[in-house]
C-alpha cells in the first residue's frame, strides 16, 4: 500500500508538471499584459528546472524506513565506509548543478525584462500588449 501510494504521488507530480508547462505556455502566449507574461515565463522556467531535478532524483531503497540525508559529517574521515555510504545514498548532483546555472541565467533574463518593461511603460504609458501593438511607436 505504501509503495502504491508513493508511486501514485510521483505520478501526480509528474503529470502536474506537464499541466504546469501547458498552462505557463498558454499564459505566455495569450495573456495580453506584460507583467502576466513575465510571471508565466518564471513559472515556465521553474517547471523546466523541476523536470531536471526530477530526473536526478533517486528512490530511497526501502519506503518504510525513514530516510537519512547523505552528509559527509566527519573531517578528516577515518575510513572509506563513510564515503561508500555517501555514494550509496546521495542523489545525482549534475542536474542540480545545471539547474543552479539555469536559475541564475533565468534571473538575469528576468532582471533585463523588468528593465525593458520599465522602459515600455515610460514610452507607451501602458503595459497592455494590445495597446502597444496598436500604437506603433
Amino acid at each position, binding site marked *: 500500500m505504501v509503495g*502504491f501510494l*508513493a*508511486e*501514485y504521488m*510521483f*505520478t*501526480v507530480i*509528474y*503529470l*502536474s508538471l506537464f*499541466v504546469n508547462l501547458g498552462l505557463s505556455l498558454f499564459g505566455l502566449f495569450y495573456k495580453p499584459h506584460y507583467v502576466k507574461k513575465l510571471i508565466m515565463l518564471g513559472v515556465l522556467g521553474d517547471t523546466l528546472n523541476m523536470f531536471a531535478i*526530477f530526473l*536526478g*532524483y*533517486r*528512490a*530511497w*531503497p526501502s519506503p518504510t524506513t525513514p530516510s537519512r540525508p547523505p*552528509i*559527509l559529517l566527519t*573531517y*578528516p*574521515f577515518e575510513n*572509506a565506509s563513510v*564515503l561508500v555510504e*555517501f*555514494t550509496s545514498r*546521495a*542523489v*545525482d*548532483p*549534475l542536474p*542540480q*548543478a545545471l539547474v*543552479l*546555472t539555469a*536559475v*541564475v*541565467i533565468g*534571473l*538575469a*533574463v528576468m*532582471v*533585463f525584462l*523588468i*528593465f*525593458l518593461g*520599465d*522602459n515600455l511603460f515610460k514610452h507607451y504609458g501602458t503595459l497592455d500588449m494590445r495597446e502597444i501593438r496598436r500604437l506603433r511607436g
Partner: protein
Amino acid sequence: MKRVVSLAVLVTIVLGMSLLLALSGQSFYPSENLRWLAIVYLNTTYNPYLPDFTVRSPESVTAIVWDYRGLDTLYETTVFYLAIIAGLALGRGVKRLNQKPTDESGLSPIVKTVTKITGPMILAVAASIGLHGHLTPGGGFQGGATAAVVPVVFIVVFSSFYLLWKGVSSQRMLTLRSAGLIGIGLTSISLFLAGLLLGLPSYVFQNIAKAGSPLSMPYDVHGALLSGTLWWFNLFEFLAVSSGFTLAFIILMTPEAEEKW
C-alpha cells in the same frame, strides 16, 4: 466561479490520469540506482584515496559548478553581468531624485526597529550560506541572492532614498561588482600564473594537484576545509551577485526626476 470550475476540472484530470497510470503499472517512479557519471562525481568529490581526481569538497554540487564545469559558471556569471549592464543601459540618461529621508517617510517605528534588528541577521545568514558553500548546500549565488533581500526591505521600510543617504550608491555597487568579477577571473588563473612563475606545468581553472601538475590551492588551513579555489570563487561570486542585485533594485526603485525635454 468559472475559474474554480476550470481549476477543479484540471485537478481532477491530473489526479484521475495519475490513478489510471499507477493502477495500470505505467507510473513514473525514480530508480534506486544512479548513472555511472553521477557515481563518478559522488565518488571523487571528497576522496582522500584518489588525490589526483578529488576536489576535496564534500558538497558535490558546488564541486561540479566551480571545479568540474568551472568554465560554464564563469560564462554564466558573464551573462548575469551583461544582463545587469544591459538593464543599466536601458535606464541611462535618466535623472533620479536624491532627497534626504525624513522621520515621517517609510513605515511605522515598530517596523523600522524590527528591520534594523533583522537586517544584519539576514546579512549574517547570507554570508553563512555563501561562505560555507563548499561544505553545505549553498554557495555564492544563493548567498548573494539572500543578501540582496536586505536593500529591498530597507527601501520599502525606510525610504527610497535611504540607501543612497547611507552611501550605498549605484556607482559603489558597480565598483564592488566589478571587484567581484575581477576576483573570479584572478582566482581562475591564479594557479596558472603560479605555474608560469615556478616553471611547473599547470592549467587554467586548476584547483587540486593533478597527475603531471603538482600545484594545488591550499585546501586545508589549520584544520578548516577550504576546498582550494571553491571558497574564493564563492566569496567573489557572493560579492558580485549581491551587489549586482542591489544595483538593479536601487535603479528600479529610485523615483525619477520630472522629465523636461
